[in-house]
């Protein structure tokens, strides 16, 4: 059996080795991230069948939990690490050709660190470790947002950093309070003892953790950094931030609420928060002129949908939410990657400059179209089954409130459809009929990941059973905290 520790150790080691490889050959360094992520992808996928039977708990240092730092490779963790590795792998292939200027070895190193941090967050079973990995993720993403070094990038990075630093302070206070209350940092151990103290004293750390992690998870009104950061970063980083970083934030919020605190009384609050996030995100995106900002706001909307689905907290709802995470990761990564080269070719992020792209970059435009269709939830793309599950979960509640709420959520979908279809029209039908001028298709290193993402979006959309097994057991891991505690502590 492969040890899940390798999922963190290998990319971490390789990340710090990148500057060393740089001494050998300047060309070598950019091939390190794809290799590391391919390794992670293979390991994660090979772990899935085992994890479906029983979560793998790895204790570091040889002590039994709760006295050690432990990794819990349960269905949720492995699912997320597989998504991270998959998207990370594809985006790193994209970056081979896309990242040419600047301190490239630093880019690749930070990129790997970001992914290591994300993988660590989803695999760790220790709440302080979660904080540490979160910081790795955040700090490398601050730096990567500023990578281009232009006005927008630096400004966004500074704003992101200020908000992120406050968030991590809040998380740290929450962790400290939990340690003060329970004398342990093991999440399963805290979860076991959570009922032994008065609810009101648990409330403060809960709120602090939700707020702090919610900043990275982009829950409204904590998400003001997101549109800036996602639109100013290099497109490959935008894809990672949108496709992975915020999902990891949502994972952390969900883990804290579902497993650590078992806070069933705030599920309705989560639903409302998700709805609010969704509506604000979609409405802000509606009249955007900047394509990357539009996609960033759409990410906020999608996060809202995910939070909404998780807040329903039935097994359908959680499966739907996790499915939506997969669909958003794939689709939004695809959209950012496609948009990356369109912006590169036109030199502007203004939507109106994208007209005629259907002719100039047919494959990339097709990719954008498929990604957009998928996000809107049209069959036969991956967004459809996830939306299907979420709507079903809300209606299965059989409460009038939830019927009204899901109607509002779907109203958000209508707005999303409106702006995405407008962009698609711009790509294909806007402007004068251009004489077929020469193709300016993206380079092959970009087309491969774009193509793979397109195929995945269609294949999972047509055959959702590929992922439903792991999703079902992941949902039951999140919902069944007793099982989690037993699995970790024995």
């Amino acid at each position, binding site marked *: 059996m492969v040890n899940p520790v390798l999922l963190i150790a290998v990319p971490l080691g390789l990340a710090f080795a990148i500057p060393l490889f740089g001494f050998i050959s300047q060309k070598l360094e950019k091939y390190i991230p794809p290799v590391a992520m391919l390794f992670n992808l293979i390991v994660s996928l090979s772990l899935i069948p085992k994890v479906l039977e029983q979560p793998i708990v790895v204790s570091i240092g040889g002590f039994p939990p709760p006295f050690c730092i432990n990794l819990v490779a349960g269905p949720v963790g492995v699912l997320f690490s597989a998504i991270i590795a998959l998207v990370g792998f594809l985006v790193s292939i994209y970056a081979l050709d896309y990242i040419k200027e600047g301190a490239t070895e630093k880019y690749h190193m930070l990129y790997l660190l970001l992914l290591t941090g994300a993988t660590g967050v989803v695999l760790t079973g220790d709440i302080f470790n979660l904080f540490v990995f979160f*910081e790795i993720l955040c*700090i490398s993403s601050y730096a990567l947002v500023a990578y281009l070094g232009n*006005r*927008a990038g*630096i400004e966004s990075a*500074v704003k992101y950093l200020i908000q992120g630093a406050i968030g991590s*302070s809040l998380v*740290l*206070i929450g962790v400290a309070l939990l340690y003060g209350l329970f004398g342990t940092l093991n999440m399963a151990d805290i979860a076991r003892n959570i009922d032994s103290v008065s609810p009101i004293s648990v409330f403060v750390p809960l709120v602090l953790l939700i707020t702090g992690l919610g900043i990275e998870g982009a829950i409204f009104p904590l998400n003001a950094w997101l549109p800036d950061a996602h639109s100013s970063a290099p497109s490959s980083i935008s894809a990672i931030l949108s496709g992975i970083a915020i999902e990891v934030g949502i994972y952390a919020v969900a883990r804290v609420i579902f497993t650590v605190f078992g806070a069933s009384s705030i599920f309705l609050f989560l639903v409302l928060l998700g709805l609010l996030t969704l509506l604000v995100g979609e409405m802000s995106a509606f009249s955007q002129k900047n394509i990357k900002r539009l996609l960033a706001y759409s990410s906020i909307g999608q996060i809202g949908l995910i939070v909404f689905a998780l807040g329903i907290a039935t097994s359908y709802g959680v499966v739907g939410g996790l499915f939506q995470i997969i669909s958003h990761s794939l689709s939004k990564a695809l959209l950012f990657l496609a948009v990356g080269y369109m912006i590169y070719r036109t030199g502007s992020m203004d939507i109106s400059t994208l007209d005629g792209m259907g002719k100039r970059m047919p494959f990339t435009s097709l990719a954008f179209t498929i990604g957009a269709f998928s996000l809107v939830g049209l069959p036969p793309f991956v967004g459809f089954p996830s939306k299907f599950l979420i709507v079903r979960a809300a209606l299965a509640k059989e409460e009038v409130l939830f019927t009204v709420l899901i109607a509002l959520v779907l109203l958000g979908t209508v707005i999303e459809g409106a702006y995405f279809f407008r962009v698609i029209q711009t790509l294909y039908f806007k402007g004068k009929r251009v004489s077929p001028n020469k193709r300016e298709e993206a380079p092959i290193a970009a087309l491969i990941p774009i193509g793979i993402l397109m195929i995945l979006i269609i294949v999972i959309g047509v055959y959702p059973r590929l992922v439903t097994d792991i999703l079902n057991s992941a949902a039951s891991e999140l919902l069944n905290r007793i099982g989690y505690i037993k699995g970790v502590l024995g």
Partner: protein
Amino acid sequence: MSFLNHYIYYIGAFGLIFIGLYIVLVKHNLIKVIIGLSIMETGVNLFLISIGYIKGGTAPIFSTPEIEAARMVDPVPQALVLTAIVIGVAVLALALSLAIRLYQHYGTLNLRKIKEQRW
């Protein structure tokens, strides 16, 4: 008085946190905001330490067998603080270097004037 004696570290810690937060909220200058963040972090670190502190306790080192475990301060928060300080330093360094680049671009550090990224 005994109340103060007992909670002085917590009061100090949260005092620092709120001072830091206040600075971040109110001050316009980026450098001051970064200082605020730093103060806030210090507060959080102090809070962490004080959780594990026992009045009159000793270092948790089994140097001499007669020190019983109950009189030792909790070592875990101290280990946590070490990590947190390292993270804090990294954030601080990154923030300051970004501040330099920001000044190069905008010619000002007034955060109320740096509002190109909005809406």
